[in-house]
């Protein structure tokens, strides 16, 4: 709550669907292509060219809709959104208007300890425009992006705080990455987030005048931009001024939003059904197939890790942030049959290495099978946990199996009681005065003997055995 006001926030997220080709023609969608390399007469809107629907984009839209609990329309309609802009090749964008492919969904996510459910009003398919680069007196246009499929996911005005808005965005990002329909990269623009913000006195039913915030390329900035905007609007109202309905851009350097265009200049898009495309009809069979292809979604997976693997909720949360990470964990857990052990190794050792090397989990030089084997070696007593910690960096560096490293370096744990006893005897013989001290009551010297024995064995002695034998020799 802000000075007796509450914020009403709705978000539109443009999810770029990572199909191989564009939504209405066969141009490649590859991100790194040279300027205007991914174009054709269709995507630059040459005379007489026509759009043809990319079936893959429809499948991705259905999958996403299902994951967001949406109703999938059997018949949706493409419409033309007419406006002039140089990077819009046809002078209209093909989008969906009154009959979108997905509607009436909802999504539940956590904001701190609180669970929040918001409505997804709709998710519709549309084509992206090109990109204008303003260089001094000139504007250069790159149409590579023109015709890339987008799914615009629109919430109801259900969000109340900047934190909720950011968490909502992160949740959508997590879901589309789980589905594999979008890489979720805000900086490269494969996800774009527009926020509608208004304020009203707490208890007031009427909605205030909203502004639309654009150009926000991280969820941290979503939070900051909305935070700024709420304060700005409250300041205006408190001063007795009015909020103007307008589009505002977020400037991350100045931490402010500023006017892009006001409603006076707002466009009449003259939507009408695109006569070049038949209504999009999807069969029950297709919807069912998409349903069957849905992966286990993050929340369900987290809950399963807690209930079936007995992981603490916090661990399960971390391990399910990304599908690849959860897959990695699950494979490691299956190989090692040690759920908590797998979770610990991944969350501490592996994630640390990945982060410091700026690598995705997919690129990890240590494979789940290998990490699982390492954990098994500890559990079987082949090596100690401490040795394992020295094997791990070797595995990271060389990609070798843990058995190989242990063998090559002769790191197998000494668990033969006779051999351990021999080491202990040598230690006791070499430290007669400490033995005397211990026996006279300095019991905290026990750790010193353990350390010395481990050191003498180069860490390979089974620590439990060292403990046992020392106990026997010193206290027995």
């Amino acid at each position, binding site marked *: 709550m802000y000075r007796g006001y509450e914020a009403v926030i709705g978000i539109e997220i443009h999810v770029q669907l990572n199909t191989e080709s564009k939504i209405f023609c066969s141009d490649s969608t590859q991100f790194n292509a040279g300027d205007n390399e991914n174009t054709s*007469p269709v995507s630059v809107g040459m*005379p*007489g060219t026509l759009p043809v629907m990319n079936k893959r984009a429809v499948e991705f839209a259905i999958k996403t809709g299902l994951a967001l609990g949406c109703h999938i329309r059997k018949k949706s309609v493409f419409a033309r959104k007419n406006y002039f802009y140089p990077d819009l090749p046809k002078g209209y964008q093909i989008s969906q208007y009154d009959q979108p492919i997905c509607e009436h969904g909802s999504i539940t996510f956590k904001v701190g300890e609180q669970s929040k459910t918001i409505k997804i009003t709709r998710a519709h398919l549309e084509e992206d425009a090109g990109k204008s680069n303003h260089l001094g007196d000139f504007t250069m246009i790159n149409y590579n992006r023109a015709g890339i499929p987008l799914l615009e996911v629109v919430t109801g005005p259900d969000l109340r705080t900047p934190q909720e808005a950011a968490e909502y965005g992160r949740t959508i990002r997590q879901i589309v990455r789980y589905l594999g329909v979008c890489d979720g990269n805000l900086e490269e623009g494969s996800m774009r987030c527009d926020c509608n913000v208004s304020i009203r006195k707490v208890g007031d039913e009427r909605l205030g005048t909203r502004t639309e915030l654009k150009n926000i390329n991280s969820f941290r900035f979503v939070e900051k931009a909305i935070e700024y905007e709420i304060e700005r609007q409250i300041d205006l109202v408190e001063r007795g001024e009015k909020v103007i309905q307008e589009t505002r851009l977020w400037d991350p350097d100045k931490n402010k939003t500023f006017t892009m265009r006001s409603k006076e200049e707002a466009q009449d898009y003259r939507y009408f059904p695109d006569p070049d495309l038949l209504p999009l009809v999807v069969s029950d069979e297709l919807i069912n197939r998409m349903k069957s292809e849905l992966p286990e979604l993050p929340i369900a997976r987290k809950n399963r890790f807690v209930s079936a693997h007995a992981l603490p909720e916090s661990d399960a949360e971390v391990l399910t942030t990304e599908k690849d990470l959860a897959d990695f964990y699950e494979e490691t857990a299956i190989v090692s049959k040690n759920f908590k052990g797998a979770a610990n190794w991944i969350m501490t050792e592996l994630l640390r290495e990945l982060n410091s090397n700026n690598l995705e989990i997919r690129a990890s030089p240590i494979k789940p099978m290998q990490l699982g084997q390492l954990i098994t070696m500890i559990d079987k007593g082949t090596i100690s946990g401490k040795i394992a910690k020295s094997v791990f960096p070797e595995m990271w560096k060389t990609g070798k199996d843990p058995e190989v490293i242990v063998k090559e370096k002769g790191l197998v744990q000494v668990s033969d009681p006779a051999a351990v006893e021999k080491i202990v005897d040598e230690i006791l013989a070499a430290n007669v005065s400490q033995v005397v001290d211990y026996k006279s009551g300095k019991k905290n010297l026990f750790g010193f003997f353990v350390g010395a024995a481990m050191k003498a064995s180069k860490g390979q002695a089974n620590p439990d055995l060292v403990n046992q034998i020392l106990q026997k020799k010193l206290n027995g």
Partner: protein
Amino acid sequence: MELINASIIEIAEAVKTKKASAKEVATFFMKRAENLNPKLNAYTSFNKQAIQDAEAIDARIAKGEDVGVMAGVPFGIKEMFCTKGITTNAGSKILQNFVPPYDATVVARLKKAGIVITGKLNQDEFAMGSSNETSFFGATKNPWNLECVPGGSSGGSAAAQAARMCAGTLGTDTGGSIRQPASFCGIVGVKPTYGRVSRYGIIAYASSLDQAGPMVSTVKDAALTLEVISGHDERDSTTSQRKVPTYSKDLSTNVKGMKIGLIKEYMHGGLHADVQKTVDQAISTLKSMGAEFVEVSVPMTEFAVPVYYLVAASEASSNLARYDGVKYGYRAEFANLSAVDLEDFYGKTRGEGFGKEVKRRIMLGTYCLSSGYYDAYYNKAGQVRRLIMNQYRDAFKKCDVILSPVTTSPAFKIGERVSDPLTMYLNDIFTTSTNLAGLPGMSVPFGMSADGLPIGVQLTGAHFDEQKMLNVGCALEGASSVKGKTPNV
């Protein structure tokens, strides 16, 4: 074989059997076209490669290759069709120098069948007109009377075909643009069922109405051409998957027992006497051949012209938005481009690039689609359109083919109606409902006016039933007063 009167089928046969070379055929027609064009202005440009293209066909025939059913047939192509490497301007200044890097699907199919492109044919700008007077490249003259219009928008195609400046032509029809000029110039023009022929590469005027079709000298040539250009195209989602019938092979003049409908609402007079006479004669001819006539009713056809202009203008306002001077086509000149505001850039480019009629329709369409007006205009027009479709469907339960006039009068004088768009629009009264309903329609030359102008009869078929329509056309063709007559140019 006398080339000047030879049909497409005869020419292809002669070329394939080496009775005539494609080169000599092309040379004959190119020469004739070049000679007559200063008088008629039917062509906007000639294909400089035509003779080489014909030689290539001859070379392939010499090697024993099958070059297709239209081997060596000289074809003129309306400016509305994109032709790879050949300027395609839609009759507009805004596309004056546009050279497409691709062929329209129908052009590609004709090429595959062996045609030689003679050049591009004049038309009303963006097919918006009924007289060919809106072309940026000047009006085309009617070869039967140089003071008259050839009709429009495919007026260049009709004039070129009537004057035999090529052996076949291709037109487009959005509200009558094939049938009306075909009637005015005494040739056969067929607008197929919507979805029968691909629109890919045809410059869009009104996407839900546009169809391409043959404008040729005989019904059989029309049937053959239709066969070649029809069929599903993966680049046009609105094309039908239905198999293409063998129209030319199945063509028959037997109309015995066939039920031919006459639309009640078209029968309240007001027709030019020569047109009325032509229609009456066509009816008695078909009756004498054993056809039965039944009265059918399409009450909503009364609103066809306004509905057509609302739908077509609305779609056009959006279709023509891409001509903005940014990517291709005409761009206005600016003393200091970097100081020009974007709105002014668009305004000047489009203001100078489009002609008056095109601007009128863009404005009309923009208005119809505007928020607050959409329901009253575009949406309402769509509803009436559906009623027209339904009423036609009911009418075709009672008959096989519908017969009607094409226009209210024979070709009118150049300049007579330019200043009166409403009268000009009403010229489309008998043709637009066919497009709104998506039905196939054709004009067959049948009568001659007292002033020596040809007059066509319109036949409309049920959805995808081009065959019956062509058969009735073929029956009429045999008794046509235009038969054997050629314009004296």
